[in-house]
């Protein structure tokens, strides 16, 4: 009785269930933006949404190559001065013109954003002055030589000075001492489309927290008519329901379908798009005496011996992991960033050789191996715990007994940062798209003063490499920086200071006929989705 009643009811409602959107695009996202303020929280979930509405002076294309955005061209006047020519004829969503004043205001607002969980000040703190030479020319002065400046300001969204109530004259002052900002609206104000005014291809129409974000086409967009009349972005955080939403036709496209569901989606004739990402999954080891959770070594830390580290690296069958555990959606890694991105040397993947690994262990004085704990998150990277288990089994074959300690990401990162693991698996996405990012964060000597080695929870330290890296980081010339970064990267990898496992591949699934140019930075951006012809 119940079912007949239901099916009747359902049948009646079927017409209303599927809204037909003319020229509409609905995307199922795996996480939700925490705010509509593009300068509030530095989080990829937020950034990928904001980039539809707000733009930046420079842009990074799908392989993170830096190109013109709101600035049509720029030059390095000297080591610490950059001159940007702003694009003319660009309009904000409210019809006002984009000028140098908006640029200064946007950089000034960053330190004024309150309660930010992760502020954008890391990109603006090094700016000592911004001068508007005329309405469409802006000169930036930086504290130190920073070759990554054009790449980094891709993160500083340009907001409208008028819409946010700035005075007519906005002048820059370092560290939040700007003048003429007026009353700076805080993050919650950006739920209002009158405030969230950008220059991007889509305008904010409405934002219902937890439910959906609706964007509409901005017909006066400077770079041609955007493809979609309306874009709806819905956060569907659980994997199963997200796939179901695509199968049921609720959404046209989803990000990160679980790998095990991909064959089924293919069978149902959905289109799968994937691309190599800038995210490296790696093993990091503790390089100091007194590492915890190592047994059978009389209190010594075997990981301080490069032979042991090499043994670990060649005991891992990366091909097998990529094929069987990652379902082919990963590529074995030989360095920390996939070639041909800047700073990569094309170094070969360490070949799988368990016999040699055993010999190396014997040479290092551990013929019978030892026991240690491998820390890993179990909900952060694609199939992370399974990968760690596979690594553990491979290492067991050469005599290193591994206890896998898998925990949820929030726990794992806290424990890792408290140096609780002798060896751990984690991932790193290079936001700037070049080798300096992983080198600086993962293997540079940990130093609170200089901000180096922030995620170096193995406390690897190679002063020679640090020197080369620092030199690279202050070299403006791309070719020379490329060479220095290759050198630094090779020094670390020859020393087995860190063990790269694989590059994750990012996957999107969509209705047949749609197309998406996959991005290495893993962002899902409506502006890059093309409709069926």
């Amino acid at each position, binding site marked *: 009785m119940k079912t007949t009643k239901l099916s009747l009811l359902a049948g009646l409602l079927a017409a209303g269930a599927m809204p037909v959107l003319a020229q509409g695009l609905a995307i199922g996202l795996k996480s939700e933006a925490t705010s509509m303020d593009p300068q509030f929280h530095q989080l990829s979930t937020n950034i990928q949404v904001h980039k539809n509405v707000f733009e930046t002076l420079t842009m990074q294309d799908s392989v993170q190559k830096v190109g013109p955005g709101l600035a049509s061209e720029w030059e390095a006047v000297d080591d610490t001065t950059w001159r940007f020519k702003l694009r003319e004829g660009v309009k904000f969503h409210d019809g006002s013109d984009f000028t140098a004043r908006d640029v200064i205001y946007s950089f000034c607002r960053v330190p004024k954003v309150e309660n930010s*969980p992760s502020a954008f000040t890391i990109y603006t703190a090094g700016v000592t002055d911004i001068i508007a030479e005329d309405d469409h020319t802006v000169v930036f002065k930086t504290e130190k030589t920073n070759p990554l400046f054009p790449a980094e300001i891709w993160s500083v969204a340009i907001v409208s000075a008028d819409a946010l109530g700035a005075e007519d004259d906005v002048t820059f002052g370092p560290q939040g001492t700007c003048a003429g900002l007026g009353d700076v609206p805080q993050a919650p104000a950006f739920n209002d489309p009158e405030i969230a005014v950008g220059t991007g291809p889509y305008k904010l129409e409405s934002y219902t927290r937890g439910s959906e974000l609706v964007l509409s086409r901005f017909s006066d967009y400077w770079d041609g008519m955007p493809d979609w009349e309306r874009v709806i972005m819905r956060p569907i955080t659980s994997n199963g*329901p997200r796939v*179901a939403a695509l199968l049921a036709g*609720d959404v046209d496209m989803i990000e990160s379908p679980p790998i095990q569901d991909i064959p089924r989606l293919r069978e149902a004739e959905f289109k799968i798009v994937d691309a190599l990402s800038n995210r490296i999954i790696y093993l990091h080891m503790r390089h100091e005496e007194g590492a915890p959770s190592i047994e059978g070594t009389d209190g010594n830390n075997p990981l301080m011996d490069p032979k042991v580290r090499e043994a670990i690296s060649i005991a891992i069958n990366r091909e097998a992991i990529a094929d069987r555990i990652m379902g082919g959606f990963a590529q074995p890694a030989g360095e920390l960033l996939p070639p041909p991105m800047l700073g990569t040397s094309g170094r070969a993947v360490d070949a799988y050789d368990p016999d040699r690994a055993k010999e190396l262990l014997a040479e290092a004085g551990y013929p019978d191996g030892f026991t240690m704990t491998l820390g890993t998150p179990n909900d952060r990277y694609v199939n992370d715990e399974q990968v760690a288990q596979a690594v553990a089994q491979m290492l067991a074959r050469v005599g290193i007994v591994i206890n896998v300690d898998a925990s949820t990401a*929030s726990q794992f990162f806290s*424990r890792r940062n408290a140096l609780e693991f002798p060896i751990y698996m984690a991932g790193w996405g290079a936001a700037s798209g070049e080798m300096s990012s992983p080198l600086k964060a993962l293997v540079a000597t940990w130093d609170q003063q200089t901000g180096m080695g922030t995620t170096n929870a193995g406390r690897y330290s190679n002063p020679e490499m640090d020197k080369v890296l620092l030199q690279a980081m202050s070299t403006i010339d791309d070719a020379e920086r490329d060479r220095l970064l290759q050198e630094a990267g090779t020094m670390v990898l020859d020393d087995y200071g860190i063990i790269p496992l694989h590059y994750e591949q990012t996957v999107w699934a969509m209705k047949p006929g749609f197309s998406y140019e996959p991005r290495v930075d893993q962002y899902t951006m409506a502006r890059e989705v093309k409709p069926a012809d």
Partner: protein
Amino acid sequence: MIVYLVRRFGQSLLAVIAMAVLVFVGVYAIGNPVDVLISPEATQSDIAATTERLGLDKPLWQQFGIFVGNAVQGDLGTSFVYGRPALNIILERLPATLELAVVALMLSVGLGVPLGIWAGLRPESIAGRTIMGGSILGFSLPNFWQGMLLILVFAVLLGWLPAGGRGETTEFLGMQVSFLTLDGLSHLILPAINLALFKMSLIIRLTRANTREVVLQDYVKFARAKGLSGRRVVMVHILKNIMIPVITIIGLELGSMLAFAIVTETVFAWPGMGKLLIDSINLLDRPVIVAYLMLTVLIIVTINFVVDVIYSLLDPRIRLSEMRG
């Protein structure tokens, strides 16, 4: 009566205080929020600055003191993630959960009570057995699995209903609700059924057991002997007498549905409070987690308190025994 109320109120207050300590210490133990919140590109000094701004550099007892101090003034803290008062963020989500819980409750009562009476009147019939069998399924199938199955059948295979989300909402009594539009209603059906199934099974079993008991009572036999129609016997004499325990259960279950619709909300991407809790736990947004749990405790304690009071009003024996004891 006053003594009883005061004593009951004191007990409720004690429960709230105990929960505050438990919740705070528990949340404190699950990791450092800064490690999750901050961009991996941030330097050590950025991390230190953020830790200090959030007050996480202070010892636990001090953090708890600040929390309690603010809480008694009605301020449950500012969300780490959203930068807004935690309570506002939760209350923003309340209408969605409330709507879902009320519709689910209506479904479970509207179907559960008649089915339970039917099964109670004819326990040996095929229909009676089927109903009981069905209720066992409702009990024992995991909630999330039921949800996925509903999506699979009605959204993916048949394509009648959407797989998740809330759909179009309209304003009703100052709240955003979805049951007034066709689109909103179609989004509401599956999650409401999912949430209702377990409660419905509970009500069916409760009603059946009570019906079987009541049917054997002298007054029912007398009513029958008097020649009253079967319908009147059921609707008046039986129904009235079985409703007391059923109403008690409904009150309690409403509280738990409001607080713990988490699984359903997650499976159906329903933007309610439960989903907010899960998201907040993943992001270690401590103020929201604590505020949510405290609110939950308050709701359940209040409902219990009210139910106890109503009980004592309905049943003088409770009042008397409590007064003596």
